[in-house]
C-alpha cells in the first residue's frame, strides 16, 4: 500500500480545514495511507515573497526536516508546492547542506492533482458534483509547476459536473500573498475584473487548486453577495 504524507499548508490549516480533509479522503479512497505532516506549519513562501529571507529560511529548514526522501509528500496548493520544489533553490543558495537535502526531497514533492494524475495514473475518482463549474488555473500551479491539464482531466471525469469556459482564465486573481493587503486597491481591482468574467460564463461554482485564490475570489464573491460558490479541487473530487 502506498503511503503519503499530506502537508496541510498554513492557509488551509487556518481557514480551509475542509480542504485538507477532502484531499485525505480522495487519497484514501485510492487505497493510499495518508499521514499528516505535523511538524511543519508553513513552507515560508509569504516571508520569502516579501524579501524576508532569514525568517523564510528557518521555515524551509523545518519543512525539509519534516520530509524524508522516499515518502511522497502531497500538497493541496500549487503555490506552496512551487515554493518547496522550485524557489527553495534560490532561498537555500547559501546553505549547501540544506540545499542538498532540498534536492534529495524535491522529486518526492507533489501538488495534489499532479500526484493523482501523474503518479497514481488515476483520472476517475468516483466523484459526483451536480454543478456548472468554472476552473480558475492558479498562477504558480500553471506557470511554475506546469500543471495545466491535470485538474481539467480530473474535473472532466466527475459525474454531473459541467465545465464552462470564461474569458482570460489565466489572468491572476490578484491574491499574491502580502500583495493583497499591501497594494489592496490593485489586488481588489484584479479580482473585481475576474468576477465580472466569471459572472458572464454562468458558472454556479468556481474551482481552484490553491487556497490563496479561493480566499481572494471567495472573499470578493461573498462581499458582492453573489450566488457563486468556491471550492478547492479536492472538495469537488471528494463529493459523492
Amino acid at each position: 500500500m502506498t503511503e503519503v504524507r499530506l502537508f496541510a499548508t498554513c492557509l488551509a490549516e487556518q481557514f480551509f480545514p475542509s480542504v485538507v480533509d477532502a484531499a485525505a479522503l480522495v487519497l484514501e479512497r485510492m487505497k493510499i495511507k495518508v499521514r499528516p505532516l505535523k511538524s511543519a506549519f508553513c513552507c515560508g513562501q509569504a516571508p520569502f515573497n516579501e524579501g524576508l529571507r532569514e525568517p523564510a529560511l528557518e521555515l524551509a529548514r523545518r519543512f525539509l526536516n519534516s520530509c524524508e526522501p522516499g515518502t511522497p509528500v502531497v500538497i493541496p496548493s500549487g503555490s506552496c508546492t512551487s515554493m518547496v520544489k522550485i524557489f527553495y533553490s534560490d532561498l537555500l543558495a547559501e546553505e549547501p547542506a540544506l540545499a542538498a537535502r532540498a534536492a534529495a526531497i524535491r522529486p518526492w514533492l507533489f501538488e495534489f492533482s499532479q500526484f493523482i494524475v501523474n503518479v497514481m495514473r488515476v483520472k476517475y475518482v468516483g466523484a459526483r458534483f451536480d454543478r456548472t463549474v468554472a476552473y480558475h488555473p492558479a498562477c504558480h500551479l500553471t506557470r511554475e509547476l506546469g500543471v495545466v491539464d491535470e485538474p481539467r482531466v480530473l474535473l472532466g471525469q466527475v459525474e454531473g459536473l459541467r465545465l464552462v469556459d470564461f474569458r482570460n482564465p489565466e489572468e491572476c486573481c490578484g491574491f499574491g500573498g502580502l500583495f493583497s493587503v499591501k497594494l489592496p486597491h490593485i489586488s481588489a481591482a484584479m479580482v473585481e475584473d475576474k468576477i465580472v468574467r466569471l459572472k458572464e460564463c454562468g458558472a454556479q461554482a468556481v474551482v481552484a487548486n490553491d487556497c490563496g485564490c479561493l480566499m481572494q475570489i471567495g472573499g470578493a464573491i461573498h462581499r458582492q453577495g453573489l450566488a457563486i460558490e468556491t471550492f478547492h479541487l479536492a472538495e469537488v473530487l471528494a463529493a459523492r
Partner: protein
Amino acid sequence: MAAAKPDPAPDFFATSRAGVADAELRRKLENSTGRHLDHVAQMRAEFPPYDAERDAARAIKEDAIGRLDQLLIELKHQLEANGCTVFIAADAAEARDYILKVARQAGARRVVKGKSMATEEIALNPALEAAGLEVVETDLGEYIVQLRRERPSHIITPAIHLSKEDIGQLFADKLGIPYSAEPATLTAAARDRLRGIFLAADMGITGVNFAVAETGTLVLVENEGNGRLSSTLPETFIAVMGIEKVIPRLADVPHFLEILARTGTGQKLTTYTNFISGPRRKGEADGPGAMHVVMLDNGRSTMLADPVLREALYCLRCGACLNVCPVYRRIGGHAYNSVYPGPIGSIVSPNLFGSAAAQLPFASTLCGACRDICPVKIDIPRILLHLRWKEGQATPPIKWPADARRARAGVARFARMARHPRTMRLLTRAAAIFARPFAHDGYLKRMPGAFRNWTRWGRDFPAPRFRRRKHVP
C-alpha cells in the same frame, strides 16, 4: 547603485490608487492590451518556429551579455571605421552633455526625434529645450504625449492611455484642426504637420534596437518611416543606445526580427527595418553628413555585475510584458512614476532611478505571465524576488506607507511563530472561537491590523476555523 536620480514624482501607492480609480483608463487599457494579446496569440500560432527562434534569440543575448566588454570594443571600432563618432556615456548627465555639445558644434536649432526609450531615460528633451533647441517627437504616439506634455505610458504604445476621442480633442486644441475622432484624419493631420518639420530639421536623434559588432550596423525597427526620416534627412544624426543592445553578428539579426514584432505589436515584421551603416560617404547623395553613436551605461554595468539581475539586460523592449501584466492593466504606465513601467520597469527602474523606484519590485503578484510572454524568456518573477530581498536590505530603507509597513512586520512575526506548529494550532483554535460571533456564514466583514486592507477593499475574509479531524493536524 547607479548615480541616484531622485524622481520628484509622488509615491507608487498614491499614483496606483489613482490608476485603479480611473474606470475609463482601465477600459482603454483592457481594450488595447487585450487586442494586442489576441494578435500575439494569432502570430505565434501561425508561426511554428516561434519557440525555436525565442531560444535562438535568448542564446545570442546570453552570449552577447556574457562578453559585453569585448563586443562593445569591436562595435566601437567598426562604427568608427564606418565614419561614426562614438561616445561612451557613463551616466545620463554625460550623455546629455555630449549630445548638447554636438548640437552646439553643429549649430543645430531644430531636432527631430524617432522613438527612443533611452533618450526618455536620460531626460534628453527637457535638456535640449533648456538649451534653446526646438525638439519634436515624430513617432505618432510620442508626438501625442509630447503635445500633452506628459510621459509615454507604455514602452511601445506611448499614448495607450488615450482614446481616439482624447486625441481628437488634443489635436483640435493644439493643432487648430476641426475636431475629429477618425484615426485616418488624425494621422493625416500629424503627418502633414511633421513633414515640414522633418524638412527643416538640422539634427535627428533616434534609439537603436540592435547594434551589430561585426559590421558596425545599427538596426532600427519602426512602423511609420519617421525613424528613417530622422536618421537620414537632417545633416547631423545621433543614435542613442543602451550598451546592452550590442549583438555579435549580422546573421543574428533575423532571429530577433522573427520574434520582436510578433511579440511586441502582433505583426510579422515592423513596416520599416532600417540598417544604418554610417554617415553619407563621398559620392553619395543621401544621408547625414555626420553620425554620432552614444553608448549609454547609466547603471547597466551594475546590473551586469549582479548574476540574477544581469538577465534583465536581455530585454528587447518589446513591451509585451506590460500588455499581459494584470497590475499594469489595472493602473496604467503613469502610475509607476518611471520611464519604464510594467514588469520590465519594475526590475530595471530601481537600478536606474535609485530609491524612488525601490517599491516597484513589490508591485506584482509574481503570477509569471510576463515571463511566459517574454520573447527572450526573462525570468522576471525571480528577479523581482531577488530585488525584494536586496532592496529590503538597502540603506536608507524603503519608505512604506503605514499599512504596508504593518503588513511587512506582520508577516515577519508570523514567520517567527510558524516555526512552532503546535503553538500555531492552538492560536488558530483560539482565533476560531474568538471570531465565531463575528462571522457571517463563515466570513468576516471587517478585519483588524494588517488585514484591515483586505476587508476595506472589496473582500470579506474567511473566518479562521478549527476542526478536530484526523487530517487537520
